[in-house]
Structure formats: C-alpha cells, structure tokens
C-alpha cells in the first residue's frame, strides 16, 4: 500500500512537511469515493471506543477533524467507552458499527457466538505494563514474589499479567493479588507494590503526581497481546465492505497524521474530550508513537503469530474453552488500499 507507506516513511525519516503525506493520502481515499461524495449524503456510522476520550484514540479524532472520514463518504460518530463498558455487545448487537477493544475480547466474543472480526490493531506493541514506585526497588517480575500486586480482573490486563507471571517463572502463589480498578491511589499509598496500567496513561499520571516509577514491560517476557483493536461484525463486512474499507483506511490515515503532528493531535483530542488536560494528552500522544510501530509495515497490520500466542494464553488461564478459527477472527484485508 502506498498511502500508509508514505506515511510511515514520513515518520521514520526526519520530520517531513505535513502537506506531503497527508495530501497524498487524501487523494488516494477521495478518488476511491469521489463519485459518491459529491452527490450522495454521507453514511452515518458509529464507532465505540474502548475507553474515555483521550489521546489513546487520537487517530480517530484526526480522521474526523481532517475530513478523512468525510472523504470516504462517512459521517462518523465517535463515542467514548468506559469502565465495564460492553463495547463488543454494542457492536455485535448491531446498534453500533465499529468498536475498539482488546484482541482477547474478540476471541472470547466469537466463542460466545458474537461474530466480530478485528480489522486492524492500533498499538502493535502493547501499551500495557506493570509499574512500581522507584522507592520500592522492584524492577522485575521476580521482585514481585512476596509482594502485593494490583490486578485488573477479567480482561486483557489480567491475562497479560498472568502470562508474564508464567513466563517469568515466579512463584504465582507467593504474590498476593489485590483486585483494583482505575484509581491509582492504592499504588501511591503503598497498599500495593505494583500497578497494571497503560504506559501511555497511568505511568504518566503517576509521574504527574511527582512519583518516579520503574516499568516492567510484557515484551521483556516475550509477551505482546494486542490491547486495542478496531473491529466490526461479520455481517457488516458482508453487507458493506466498501464502508468498512473506507472507515479503516481513513482511521489509519488519521493515525498517520497524528504520529506526524503529535502536538496538534493532542490539541484536537482535548476538544473531543471533556475536562482533558492538554499537557497530559500531549505526553500520552508522544508516548503512543513508538507503540504504533509505524516503521513495521502498514499501520494497523496484525500478525497471525501474535493472535495464536494470545489464544494459547487465553486457553491457559481458562478464559477461552476451545480454539477459535483465527483466520476469521481477524483480517488485514481492509488495511490494504
């Protein structure tokens, strides 16, 4: 694909002038949809994010802001998710069109009969990490033995944590787990020693509270579970592949733009969210860039191997009963122009 390629070139090289990559990408999509765009009304679609509006989803905001969605003939309504928010149900019930959720959710949903398909990954390197206060001296999984660790039960976070424990070969029984949500204070007050969170969000938040932190990356233990994937239903793909394609490509173009203009992206993000702090969002945006791995081929492209190790882990911890057909669980076909 040339559009995305040119974008990644832009990032990998020194800062290319915005105009170049953006305009070429615009040309590509608008030519695909040019015959409709002028005459027909925009098609309304809804995308349900995994979390509240923040720079974690900057690509979506930029695609909307820069008119990429409009060029694709789409009028996109970006809706925030939240804690315990069942975005998979919302999309698979047909009341919404696209969603962002973890790859684990995709596989589990398929097992439960909700035919969802991942269309692209956002962070190719998972933003999920465990982190500790510097003062605790804990820097590795091994150090967690005999300590109290916060665990976000049920989802992607628990899965990644358990896989890390397994891979590190530490005595799982010696770690005492404390179920936590999204409020950092148990870590700050020392109730727990390690905290599960996004390196682009909670880690920064802790630093903003004036704490120095040690980060334990899953990748250090050979683990990388896609945490944010863009998905839709099988039915949507069958019925309206054009819209799916248009949406995925416009979104990825938005990401491409955000990578190249992180400050502008943070500013746009603040407009989308409520009561967001520009400084925090700018940091989040900048921290996001390496995780997108724009240099590793077209943005959003997924690898079969990642899905299958994820599936093995899911079966390991019992979240998944039997193997799913990975070929139908995700597709890269819409990333290609």
């Amino acid at each position, binding site marked *: 694909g040339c559009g995305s390629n040119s974008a990644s070139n832009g990032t990998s090289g020194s800062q290319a002038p915005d105009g170049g990559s953006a305009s070429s990408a615009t040309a590509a999509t608008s030519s695909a949809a040019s015959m409709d765009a002028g005459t027909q009304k925009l098609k309304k679609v809804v995308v349900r994010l995994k979390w*509240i*509006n923040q720079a974690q989803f900057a690509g979506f905001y930029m695609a909307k802001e820069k008119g990429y969605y409009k060029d694709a003939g789409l009028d996109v309504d970006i*809706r*925030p*998710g*939240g*804690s*315990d*928010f*069942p975005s998979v*149900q*919302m999309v698979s*019930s047909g*009341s919404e069109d696209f969603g962002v959720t973890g790859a684990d959710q995709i596989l589990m949903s398929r097992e439960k009969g909700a035919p969802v398909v991942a269309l692209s990954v956002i962070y190719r390197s998972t933003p999920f990490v465990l982190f500790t206060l510097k003062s605790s001296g804990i820097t590795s999984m091994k150090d967690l033995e005999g300590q109290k660790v916060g665990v976000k039960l049920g989802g992607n976070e628990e899965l990644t944590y358990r896989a890390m424990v397994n891979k590190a070969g530490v005595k799982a029984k010696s770690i005492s787990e404390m179920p936590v*949500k*999204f*409020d*950092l*204070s148990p870590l*700050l*007050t020392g109730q727990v020693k390690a905290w599960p969170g996004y390196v682009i969000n909670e880690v920064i*938040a802790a630093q903003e*509270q004036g704490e120095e932190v040690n980060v334990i990356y899953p990748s250090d233990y050979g683990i990388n579970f896609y945490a944010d994937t863009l998905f839709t239903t099988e039915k949507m793909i069958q019925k309206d592949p054009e819209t799916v394609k248009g949406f995925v490509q416009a979104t990825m173009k938005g990401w491409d733009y955000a990578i190249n203009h992180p400050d502008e992206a943070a500013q746009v993000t603040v407009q989308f969210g*409520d*009561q967001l*702090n520009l400084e*925090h969002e700018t940091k989040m945006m900048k921290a996001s860039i390496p995780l997108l791995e724009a240099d590793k081929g077209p943005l959003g492209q997924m690898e079969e191997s990642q899905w299958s190790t994820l599936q093995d882990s899911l079966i390991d911890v019992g979240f998944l009963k039997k193997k799913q057909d990975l070929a139908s669980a995700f597709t890269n076909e819409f990333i290609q122009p």
Partner: protein
Amino acid sequence: MTTKIKDVLYPIAFAVGLILIWEAVVRIFDIPLYLLPAPSDIARVVDGELLRNMGATLYEAVLGFLLANVLGFLTAILFVHSRPAEKGIFPLAIALKTTPVVALAPLLVIWLGTGYWSKVAASMIICFFPILVNSVKGLKAVEHEAWELFSAYKGTKAEIFWKLRLPTSLPYVLSALKISSSLAIVGAIVGEFVGSNKGLGYLVLLSSYHLDTPVMFSAIAAAAVAGLILFGIIASVEKRVIFWQKVDEV
C-alpha cells in the same frame, strides 16, 4: 433565640464546624490531595462545567422519576381494581425490587444504548417500586366506614376512586416521591457510570481516572445538592397538596 432561628443556625453552625475541622485535619496532617482534598480545594474546582454535568444528571433523573411515578401509580390502580393482577404480580414486583439496578445497568446500556434512555431507564427502575408499593398501600388505606358511606349512597367505582381513594392515597404517594427523589439521582449516576460522556456519574469516573480527587468530591457534593433540590421541591409540593395532614420533616 426562637426555635425557628435555632432550626437554621444549629445545622449551619454544625456544618461550618465540620468543614473547618476537615480543612484543619487535611492541612495539619498534610494529607495528599488524591486521598482527601481539603474543602478549599474542592470549592476551587466548582465551575460551570460542574453545573452543566449536574444539569444533565438532573434531566435524566427527573425524566426517569416522572415516568416511573406515572407508570407506578397506574400499575397500583390496576392492582387495586384487579385482585388476580395484584396477587399475581405484586410478589414478583417485590422480588424484582431486591434486584440491584447497579447490576442491571450494563444490560440497560446494551439494550438502550448510551444515550439518555439507558440512564432514564435506570432511574425509572429504581423509582418504580417505592411508588408502586406506597400507591397500593395508599389506595387501600381507605377507611372501611368511608367506603361504606360511598356504598350507602351508591357512589360509582369512578366516584369512589376520584373522591375517596385518590385523596386518601396522596400522603402515601408523596412520601414515596420523597423517597425516590434521591433514588432518581442514584439511578441516573449508575447509568452514567456504565457509559456516557456527560453527567455527574461521568465526572466522578473521569476524575477518578485522572486522580482528580477535588473534582470527584465536587461531583459527589453536586449529586447531594441535586438530591436535595428534588427533595425540596417534593416537600414543598407535599405541604400544599396534603394540607390536611401534618407532614413529617423527613
């Protein structure tokens, strides 16, 4: 001091005292902001944004409150006039009453989306049972002799309803309204927790994610104020409507 003045002065003095102690404790023990903000920290973050979110929550709550009360009262009328309906449905209604809305909220969002309606529905569900239970009680609270009086003068069913049952039930209905006025806010907030981008519930969650404890406290306080506003309105309506009864202060 007259009793009236005391009635106002005592709680104010007490509240001011509490706030001062709170402020002092936070400062003296240097409690971190994210654990317990001082009242002054909380006051500082009160702004139009907070009021806007409070407005959104109040809107959802009032809508759910009104719908639930209309529906609940109509159901009570059905129950009172149909024995099988009452005998069959009422026990189930009581069983349902013990179902926590918090547990239902995610389902509501799946079924009704993340717009107003899922919050309105949560508010409705939580307000429905108090009004149903109290209305049935109230519509049945008719004195036996009063009923006999109407029967003796061959009053029709409709006359018995409008001139006897309805006025008799009013004190019960208004007491239910007072109970559910604060529950309505709880329902809306629970709905907002699951998925929304405005309202006090959203603000509480957002501030908890951002570790913005002062905003969180301001949102909680706003929820209490919203509840008090609804309660106050109902209480003043009550005084007018059931003029023939001395009304409880709670």
